[in-house]
């Protein structure tokens, strides 16, 4: 299968190891991975902060850059959610029927990583080895926008050596919410405190998720408090041998 990687601007700049893990993992599973270098940002931050008009050119760019791809994969549930849920609305807002058509054409080919693995490649055991105690946080956008369900957990359960622990109130938001984390910092931190307590209660070494943005927020607090618990994107666990 030929797969175009949409790494996201966030991972490209701040978490390149996640992008590398996706490439290694997919190649190991027999995919031919390409990385269209003209890609930048999906526009999620702009759109979710109220700057939809500023996001429109980014949506146009996305459909242009990935228009020829058979399948687009991304290790970010919220960026995939942006494309799937908001691009059509942006096209309507901009009164751009050409963009609307391009969005309709590309949306069925865009996959979040665990969707690609489980649905398209039909694998749950990706041959990974990760002998650590891990808590999985289902991010809001993977859970409620993409509805990935238990795909990430099925993949994690098949990892050799992993001690996958149950996270209490797992489905509750960690409090990141993009610019919410700085615009309503006090409320965001209150939500984060409860998430952190749940993570620490599991005595996990690693907290994982399908989105590095939530993990940057959770991980930032884990580091601040010198908990010794680290965050790691799901892809990096699945790529580990």
């Amino acid at each position, binding site marked *: 299968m030929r797969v175009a990687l949409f*790494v996201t601007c966030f*991972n*490209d*700049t*701040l*978490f*390149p*190891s996640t*992008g*590398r893990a996706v*490439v290694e993992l997919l190649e190991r599973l027999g995919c031919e991975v*390409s*990385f269209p*270098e003209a890609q*930048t*940002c999906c*526009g999620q931050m*702009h*759109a979710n*902060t*109220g*700057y*939809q*008009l*500023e996001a429109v*050119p*980014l949506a146009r*760019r996305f459909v242009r850059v990935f228009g020829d791809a058979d399948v687009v994969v991304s290790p970010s549930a919220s960026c995939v959610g942006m494309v799937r*849920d908001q691009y059509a609305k942006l096209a309507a807002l901009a009164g751009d029927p050409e963009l609307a058509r391009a969005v309709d054409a590309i949306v069925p080919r865009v996959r979040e990583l665990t969707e690609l693995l489980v649905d398209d490649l039909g694998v749950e055991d990706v041959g990974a080895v990760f002998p650590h105690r891990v808590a999985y946080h289902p991010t*809001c*956008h993977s859970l*409620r*926008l993409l509805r990935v369900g238990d795909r990430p957990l099925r993949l994690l359960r098949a990892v050799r050596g992993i001690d996958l622990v149950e996270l209490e109130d797992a489905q*509750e*938001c960690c*409090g*990141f*919410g*993009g*610019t*919410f*984390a*700085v*615009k*309503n*910092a*006090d*409320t965001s*931190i*209150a*939500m*984060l*405190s*409860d998430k952190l307590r749940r993570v620490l209660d599991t005595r996990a070494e690693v907290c994982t998720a399908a989105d590095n943005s939530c993990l*940057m927020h959770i*991980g*930032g*607090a884990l*580091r*601040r408090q010198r908990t010794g618990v680290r965050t790691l994107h799901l892809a990096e666990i699945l790529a580990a041998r």
Partner: protein
Amino acid sequence: MARAGFPASAPANLANSQLRRNLGKATRTIRGKRAEVVSELPDWEALRDAGAAIKARALATLPEQLERLEAAVTRAGGTVHWARDGAEANRIVAGIAHGHGAREVIKVKSLATDEIKLNDALAAEGIEAIETDLAELIVQLGHDRQSHILVPAIHRNREEIRSLFMRTIARGRELGHDPGSLTEAARRHLRERFLTVNMAISGANFGVAETGTVCVVESEGNGRMCTTLPEVLVTVMGIEKVLPEWRDLEVFLQLLPRSSTGERMNPYTSLWTGVREGDGPREFHLVLLDGGRTDVLADETGRQALHCIRCSACLNACPVYSRTGGFAYESVYPGPIGAILTPQLEGLDRAPTLPWASSLCGACYEVCPVKIDIPSVLIHLRGRVVREQKRRTDPERLTMGAVGKVFASQERYERAQRLVRRGAGPLAKLPIRVGALGGWTEARELPDVPEQSFRDWWRAERGGT
């Protein structure tokens, strides 16, 4: 009332440990009960679809439905009044009270009358409005504010209520600490009013256009006392509460109790159609309140907020509300639904921060019995605030524009990537301009920016594509 805005009003509430405990416990309990009774119904999703469809139809044909309602109520011996805004509605109600020489009125729990501040308006006319819903009574006696749609005194615990009752309705008499003693004190106080006050005011959960029937659902039976004992009954109903047909109630009377109190069936469901000789009030007035609702209807995305049946499931499910409580929203309508309803009813300029009072986690949408896509409406309203309220020179707007230009070009983007490694350039400035960087670093470390971006690695390893 000028609002401080959500970011400014949230911290004091977040810091109140009693409030956090009361709220955390209460919302968790109701969440659990709701989830349990909803899971019992195999056709819950179909019910939600039906609820959404009925509401959409009612709103799409609103003028027609309201005229049908007016005709049916009038036919049944009631009188219908039309109020453009809260002030007009308050004048109508006060006028009816004066016409009967009423100095006191008893009230059924009603959000619409809270929204228009009816009690204050009546007080200014020398008429005392007595709340009969237990929680509303607690709020009224304590000169307090409501903090939840369904459980207005959710921020108060039992001991606080006991001492409040001892100071007020028990007139210094010692009260027991158990719920029974407290409700007994309220019962004694209220029973006297039910039997002596001659005029009652209610809101409406539903108004059926086909039959002219008004429906109020409640748990205590105090509402029914108000709707049956006094001679005069006045109902203030937001125009969006109209249901086209009688059979529509079948859907909503399943959706509402399971979503709100986590009950299979609502304890007291009162339905009345105009007046009837020798049974209930002799005079019935229905005040139809617009209060900004037709403006909301004009917004294609935002109008679904008018589908709300005030169940409060979204409040209980919301990770923001369950920590800040209702006061932070500075409105009769708190929580996720308040965040999309208040700015639309009152105008975006009156509550410009509310659309951002959400992490967009989607828990509200998931539980909404009429499928209001609250996250999408929040995002839509954020866009409207930015486009309609923010000046072009607003620092955030300038920054977002600049960052948008960065992302619009591969070359500019890659340059910005290199700069951010040194803590410089437009990407590094972003969190400062959008909120305050201190808000992040107060509790969280910033991530280290790696020396090699993903694309640098790709080029080095794969030699480009």
